[in-house]
């Protein structure tokens, strides 16, 4: 079954599930209005003070982010560089100068991010992932941003409105797609 057919099944199943529960929402408007009419119109002064005190301040978020960045930089300097492995069908490579975190995600990892590394800090991030022969869909995450088109990929496809790359390991498209 094609992915778009799975998508259609999912849409239909979710519509059915929600539709079966919707009858519970009859009269919700009146219940909400009654509850709101029962409550005081505005928050009390105490509530507003409490909200102000518990609201995260952008300044503190910035300080926290800087501290995390410095700590990450210091830890990175302490680790010894390792050589980039030779290219192989299992090697994933992406140029991402200045990136803080890079990962590869794919069907081989059940779309869980696998961290990539840039030991010598030249902006070339790599990960060598042992893969049995097969067809694999994947993408990169550079600082959380989706990069779906790997120049080394053999083909691309669009899914969820975004590109993913496709790579064949241990064979050609013809003998691995069936």
């Amino acid at each position, binding site marked *: 079954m094609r992915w778009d057919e*799975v998508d259609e099944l999912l849409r239909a199943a979710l519509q059915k599930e929600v539709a079966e529960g919707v009858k519970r*929402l009859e009269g919700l408007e009146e219940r909400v209005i009654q509850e709101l*009419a029962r409550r005081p119109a505005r928050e009390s002064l105490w509530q507003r003070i409490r909200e102000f005190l518990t609201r995260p301040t952008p300044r503190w978020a910035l300080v926290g982010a800087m501290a995390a960045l410095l700590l990450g930089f210091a830890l990175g300097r302490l680790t010894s560089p390792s050589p980039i492995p030779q290219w192989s069908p299992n090697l994933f490579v992406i140029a991402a100068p200045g990136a803080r975190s890079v990962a590869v*995600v794919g069907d081989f990892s059940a779309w869980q991010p696998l961290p990539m590394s840039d030991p010598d800090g030249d902006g070339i991030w790599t990960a060598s992932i042992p893969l049995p022969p097969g067809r694999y869909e994947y993408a990169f995450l550079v600082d959380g941003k989706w990069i779906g088109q790997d120049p080394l990929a053999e083909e691309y496809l669009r899914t969820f409105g975004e590109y993913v790359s496709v790579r064949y390991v241990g064979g050609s498209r013809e003998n691995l797609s069936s």
Partner: protein
Amino acid sequence: MPAEELELIQRSLNGDLEAWGEIVCRYKEAVFAVTLSILRNYADAEDATQDAFIRAYENLRKYDLSRKFSTWLFTVAANIAKNALRKRRRERDPPLPEMDGDPAEEVHTDLRLAAVRAAVAALPEAYRAPVVLYYWHGLSMEEIGQVLGLPVGTVKTRLHRARALIRAKLVEQGVIQDAVG
């Protein structure tokens, strides 16, 4: 935002509860889908939906009119549902029989849809909400990220993983054929 909806929001901001009732009427099903995806229980989702509209009204002055109203409302609903889920877990998570439907009825309606629903229900909590927001609400990745407070990349990986899990389950059960699409 349609002018009519903007007017309803502005009237609600001025304390017009009837206007807010109209907003509830328009969005209750969509908000219910959000809370149901997180809570997986019709009764809890109903309560959370009501709470979401009350909380949204009370916080309406914080709503930035330049943002999409539905995205903001779904964010409020998702937060309410997540809090309810945490509370339910503290009080020992009860079984969720209501989502299973009537098996006899499902045999006669559509086995495939029933299998898909079961597969979605079996997804880890972190994956269900993105699936519903994408497939039911048709939200963009960015909007799903805003609603759930997740980076866009995380939303995408969760959607891919969720769909792969669902597909694998359906193949395992013989509901669909295993072939690369």
